[in-house]
């Protein structure tokens, strides 16, 4: 499963969103995801990707694709820092 598919799965399950809305360039705000929802969403991302998001979430995350890129970079960084702990998307 790709990162995008995993993100889509979270949004469908946890935010009751319609799959057809979840195209890569869809903006989070247009999906009804506000700043608090982003925090909640990131908890789910942490669980799903085995990540630990310690720093503030960048305000530049506008579209789904921005989120996907952010997650991929974080997965890569954290697998480099602690290869035994990070787990990739299955």
């Amino acid at each position, binding site marked *: 499963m790709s990162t995008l598919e995993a993100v889509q799965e979270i949004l469908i399950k946890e935010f009751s969103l319609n799959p057809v809305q979840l195209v890569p360039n869809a903006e989070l705000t247009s999906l009804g995801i506000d700043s608090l929802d982003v925090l*909640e969403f990131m908890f789910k991302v942490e669980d799903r990707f085995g990540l630990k998001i310690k720093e503030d979430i960048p305000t530049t995350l506008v579209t789904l694709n921005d989120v996907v890129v952010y997650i991929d970079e974080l997965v890569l960084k954290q697998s480099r820092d602690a290869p035994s702990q990070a787990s990739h998307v299955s």
Partner: protein
Amino acid sequence: MTLHRVAVTGLGVVAPLGNSIEELFSNLVAGHSGIRVLPSSVSEGLRSKIGAPADFDGQVHFQVPRLRMLDRVSQLALIGAARAIADARISFEDERGARCGVFVGCGMGGAGATDSGYHTLYAGRSDRVEPYTVLAAMTNAPASWIGIEYALSGPNLTYSTACSSSAVALGEAARRIRSGDIDVAVAGGAEAPLTFGVLRAWEAMRTLATQDPKNPSASCRPFARSRSGLVLGEGAAFVILETWEHAIARNATVHAELTGYGLATDMAHITRPTAEGQANAMRAALVSAGVHADSIDYINAHGTATLQNDAVETAAIKEVFGARAYRLPVSSTKSMHGHLLGAAGALEFVICVEALRRGTVPPTMHLDSPDVSCDLDYVSEGARTGILLRAVMSNSFAFGGTNAVLIAATAS
């Protein structure tokens, strides 16, 4: 200033013993108790494992992600208010939002959200506190959600005076209707205290009833010699209040008139009630209704089944009603639906309105042997039907001392 009569045009409940006023009242008349042993997830380790839960599953009514923002108390409030609005057959699309207000009593706010947040922090040693915790836990969340749901832009107020919270909410709403500040009020109370943390805190105060080993549902015994305390319950109860003219203009069914509201405060102690404070609240309500004590035909007592309250309330009723106190039916329906704290006043007012409409007085259950200091007519033999009730009184007294009394009269 013209004073308006206050019409009660809608009733809605989510309560132990009923998801409609008809179901609730029928169960009360039958003497059924909604008190039961709670699941071990919330009662493990408690001395008394009992409570009065509402038959309510939030997931049936709300979807994620909204569900995550709504503590159970707000879920109960939204559905209780929706039922009152449906009963009143009022559409707020036809109303000016600024002329409509929301008045909610709530004692403990989003107790579940608070409990869960602390559990995450202290037991889970995790920093992953839900981002919605503050919004879910804040005491005014139930009122706010109702205002948002129906776009009611008039006053949106939450009253937190412990066990009298929603009696105060109804009374304060009625004052604004009476003065003509607003046309319509959605007024009520909600409480969801059946979490382990809240139950344990109440248990620590030694005010909860001892669980009856043979029949847990009979553990709450107001006015009885064997009474041992209150049983916590959850739920919501709402009414729609309107100026009489507004109700008539839209051809609404008027269930009753809210005629009286009295407040008086105990100054002695944070928990210890005084007959003087309770009696003063009853007198103030009679003055507000413009009626003599003789015109009250039923009192729904605060009747918590604590040692202190029931004896003091009995003395206060005697102080106000004199010799007539002994001929006046007084019952505590808490013996069946438990103590809904911030929702108790609204729930018991709704029960009073239904008593008026049906000419039926619900009983006090599990009162086999009265305390010597409790010597009134507590309707312990079972409900009384076919009684002409002109006006009824609902007592709500509170830790902190805010005593609130409401009077409802037959619509005529």
